[in-house]
């Protein structure tokens, strides 16, 4: 079972459908107890960084414990940003801090609109379990205004005014700024990889050490 964390923001229909299509068995959860039996956790999310404040403080601890236990976590869109320490969108609201850095607003430049909405290409930076099989330049669907910084956890970047972290991966912690459930075949491939990583965590742990 893959637990999909519900913090009351946005609609989970598409994420659930995508995980099912990728061979996973998703279950929506808002209580920490549900994470006990989960093979993996997906933190979806749309909207404002402050929406994560609605998360039960116990759930926050449970997510950190889950990640510390080595099982895979995937943040999608705002969920990726939540993996970091915080965001200038909501100063004072703490992220999970599983990855270092702070998310910031994409720059407004002539001819470039913010929010960044639509299909854009990935520049893959190196080997990645999550992006396995995705070619450099693969196009995926984004819709966001804030973005995570490029750090050593970044496995793919995308450019919209500046390069930002389109996909991150550190051990069992994964994130994508794009919406894999809306990114056609390229997105389904990412979800399939995450489902496989969840089914075979030992494989993943040995790979990350």
């Amino acid at each position, binding site marked *: 079972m893959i637990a999909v964390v519900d913090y009351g*923001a*946005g609609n989970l229909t598409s994420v659930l459908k995508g995980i099912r299509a990728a061979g996973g068995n998703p279950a929506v959860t808002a209580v920490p107890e549900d994470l006990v039996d989960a093979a993996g956790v997906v933190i979806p999310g749309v909207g404002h960084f402050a929406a994560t404040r609605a998360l039960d403080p116990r759930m926050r601890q449970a997510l950190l414990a889950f990640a510390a236990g080595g099982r895979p976590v995937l943040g999608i869109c705002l969920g990726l940003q939540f993996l970091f320490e915080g965001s200038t969108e909501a100063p004072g609201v703490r992220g999970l801090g599983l990855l270092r850095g702070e998310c910031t607003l994409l720059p*407004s430049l002539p001819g470039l609109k913010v*929010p960044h*909405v639509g299909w854009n290409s990935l520049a893959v930076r190196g080997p990645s379990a999550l992006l396995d099989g995705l070619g450099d330049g693969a196009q995926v669907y984004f819709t966001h205004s804030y973005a995570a910084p490029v750090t050593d956890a970044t496995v793919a970047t995308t450019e919209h005014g500046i390069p930002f972290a389109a996909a991150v991966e550190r051990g069992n912690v994964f994130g994508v700024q794009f919406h894999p459930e809306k990114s056609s075949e390229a997105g389904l491939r990412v979800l399939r990889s995450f489902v496989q990583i969840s089914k075979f965590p030992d494989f993943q742990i040995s790979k990350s050490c």
Partner: protein
Amino acid sequence: MLSRRLIACLDVRNGSVVKGVQFADLADAGDPAALARRYNSEGIDELVILDVTATIENRRALQETLRKVSAELFIPLAVGGGIRSEADAAAALDAGADKVALNSAALEDPSLLTRLASRYGSQAVITAIDAKLGHAGTYEVFARSGRSATQREAVEWAREAADRGAGEILLTSIDRDGTRSGFDCTLTAAVSGAVSIPVIASGGAGSFEHFYDVFTQGSADAALAASVFHFSEHAVGELKGYLRERGVPVRL
């Protein structure tokens, strides 16, 4: 680089796809789920389902149509027509839509945009604007499928909609809709230049050149069409090839 999007519109009435000429004379063009599958395999970037008669007949967009269309679809899906309340939007999103487009209801109660944006995020909220060139040279906004003049000006309403939380503007030229004489690039450029959110141009697509024009002169972020895509199985791929050759970034 961010690609310009091609969006296929399925005008649906009573569960089947129809295509209007200036919002009247509807002629049948197919099963929505079958068309959606075809477009997806042809490489369309996004789909819009418009329940063209919903507002007039005061019906909600058909949940069943949405379920069938979204079942095998992994690209963004928007729905418009008959979204009049938070409950209507919730029903459409639950049935598989990613975005809801509001037109008449947003004009009557603009705060609905803000309420939906705070509940679902701005990315789920499209303001659909139907505009017509007036005698004074400005574009007037019409409600209720082009039947009711609102005395609001398109650029000013687009700005307000964006300020209130809309994430995209779906801008239809009533003058051009169904004529296949080209998008209204003047209208599109005026609105696109006035807001920071993406503008989807609609109404008038008839040739590949029309898309090139609206992406360049019109500064459109996306272009929507119906019949251009309905009647040829090669249109999407060929159009993308045409645009790419001319320097317009597209997803291939």
